[in-house]
């Protein structure tokens, strides 16, 4: 991706026993989920044909899977960035909502601006919204007041309620009768999409963010300092690395990336703000980042897999009359096998 030798390494990785093992683990999780479906009297084979046929079987399905991958890449990065220094950001969902909220404010207030001005503006606003939401938790952590794990988790609920407040209240579209939603964005506020599909600019933003992050991590002083903090915090502190500043900054950046996911969802996919903005992209991003164990290719692969699973939820609901939330079981099973496997080797503390 970034250099020829990197690409070669990636190729070697794909054919390594590690990839094979991951594949076997995935099959294990799929088999376990099939068993669950069987117990509840559903036909697992038909379920899998529905899921994979509708996501991978056609060009349209594939493009829709890619569309779902965009917020997942960004929310996974939102977890991966702070995790470099042992910070656990479980607040991707809330940060996504806040990013969407601020971006919506921009799109509704400055709707008459031309595209080349409006799109950068709502992008910055989306990043700021999520970033401030995450940065606040970073501040609480840096002062030693509240663990970021618990504060980011609780802030998710606050963020979703805040969006509901605006959508049901001051921003409610008077023309769409009883639907709680804001007015539609102007043309200028819609992120451009590619090749007549719904795959939009967010993909470029996500991939750029990923490359940038891994470049900073491996090639700059900041990356070195982050690794120093991650490996031995006390030693880093004595060497004068400003740890508290990193805590706030990394949660700000992480939150901002999740905020970009929210911005791109309202701008490119929904075209307006609704309370049901995300089917748990933030939480899924957390699982992706964990499965990937910090590798960029891993994030892409896991995001692809889980976007198939997420899409599978909607598909099962339509074709098999199973509640959409059921795919959470499959998601959990995939994570179980990954975690149990890695934990057994003692690779994760």
């Amino acid at each position, binding site marked *: 991706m970034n250099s020829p030798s990197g690409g070669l390494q990636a190729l070697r990785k794909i054919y390594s026993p590690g990839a094979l093992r991951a594949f076997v683990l995935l099959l294990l999780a799929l088999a376990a989920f099939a068993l669950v479906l069987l117990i509840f009297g559903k036909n697992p084979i038909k379920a899998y044909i529905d899921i994979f046929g509708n996501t991978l079987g056609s060009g349209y399905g594939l493009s829709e899977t890619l569309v779902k991958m965009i917020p997942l890449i960004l929310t996974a990065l939102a977890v991966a960035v702070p995790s470099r220094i042992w910070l656990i950001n479980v607040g991707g969902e809330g940060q996504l909502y806040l990013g969407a909220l601020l971006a919506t404010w921009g799109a509704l207030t400055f709707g008459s601006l031309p595209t080349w001005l409006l799109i950068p503006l709502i992008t910055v606003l989306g990043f700021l919204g999520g970033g401030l939401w995450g940065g606040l938790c970073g501040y609480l952590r840096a002062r030693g007041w509240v663990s970021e794990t618990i504060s980011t988790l609780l802030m998710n*609920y606050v963020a979703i*309620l805040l969006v509901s407040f605006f959508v049901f209240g001051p921003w409610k579209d008077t023309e769409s009768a009883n639907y709680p939603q804001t007015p539609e964005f102007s043309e200028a506020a819609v992120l451009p999409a590619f090749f007549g599909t719904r795959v939009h600019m967010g993909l470029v933003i996500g991939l750029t963010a990923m490359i940038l992050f891994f470049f900073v991590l491996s090639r700059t002083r900041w990356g070195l300092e982050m690794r120093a903090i991650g490996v031995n915090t006390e030693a880093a502190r004595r060497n004068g690395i400003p740890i508290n500043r990193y805590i706030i900054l990394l949660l700000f950046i992480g939150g901002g990336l999740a905020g970009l996911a929210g911005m791109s969802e309202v701008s490119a996919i929904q075209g307006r703000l609704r309370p049901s903005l995300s089917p748990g992209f933030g939480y899924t991003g957390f699982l992706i980042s964990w499965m990937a164990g910090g590798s960029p290719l891993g994030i892409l692969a896991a995001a692809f897999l889980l976007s198939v699973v997420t899409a599978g939820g909607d598909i099962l609901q339509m074709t098999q009359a*199973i509640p959409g939330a059921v795919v*959470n079981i499959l998601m*959990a099973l995939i994570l179980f096998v990954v*975690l149990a496997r890695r934990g057994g080797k003692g690779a994760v503390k």
Partner: protein
Amino acid sequence: MIESFFAGLIVGSIHSGTPLLYATLGEAVEERAGIVNLGLEGVMLIGAVSAFITTVQTGSAFWGVMAAAAAGALFNLLFGFLVISRRANQLACGLAMMFFGVGLSALLGAPYIGSRIVGLNEIRLPFLSDLPLVGSVVFHYDILVYLAVPVALLTWGALFFTRWGLSLRAVGENPLAAFAAGKNPHRIQYQALIIAGILGGIAGAHLSIGLAKTWAEWMTAGRGFIAVALVIFSKWHPLRAILGALLFGGAIALQLQMQARGLPVSPFLLDMLPYLLSIGVLAVWGGSRRQAAPGSLGRVFQGTE
């Protein structure tokens, strides 16, 4: 008007605080043994759905509560297998368990959406319930409410005044030392998880067959996470948990009371209260929190090799 508002607020705090207290007690026991369980939300959901289904099927709320306790314990055993036997990361596993609980409860509960039950009956105490004013506030609850404080006392007694409680806390502080003293850290942690599962399951049961008397997907709405915050707030102490549960139950009740009275405040803003209160209270508590936390919270005993 004002009087009935406060009466309603107190009754509401006790009602909403009860499931929080059970869940908090369970989480406190786990964390005292060194295990953080973010899957509490999932445990409560599984408890809620098991209680509801069993009550619909048998017509008996008693068996509903029993089923919830058993299901919660089983659910936590799976978590135990991952974090104790497989030594997987506790936070990630906890979240995965939450997802598992959300999905499984949705699947189990789907056929029962809209079913009607009688649920847990309000128990009126003779004479006491008929007292003017006080009677209506203090003595009109279901059995789980009456039992909540005794269970907290029991947990307190078990943790601090028994040999088993001492071992459990020793494992949470320093498993290696406990092992050297002849304890089996893994077995004690499994025991703690079973107890926590039972309490978490009962917490869910109280939501579904005690308060709401109905089943809805993800009906816990983050109460499991609030309970995790409550454990920190109560400094891992069962008696302080009573106070905390009442306070947070009060935040939930305040919102219900104001909504019921049609006060001109957005329900969405009021709904934020318990979450903001959690964070605010933890922030104020901040500094002194560290010495109260069990020494090896979140780390798993790796053996002695």
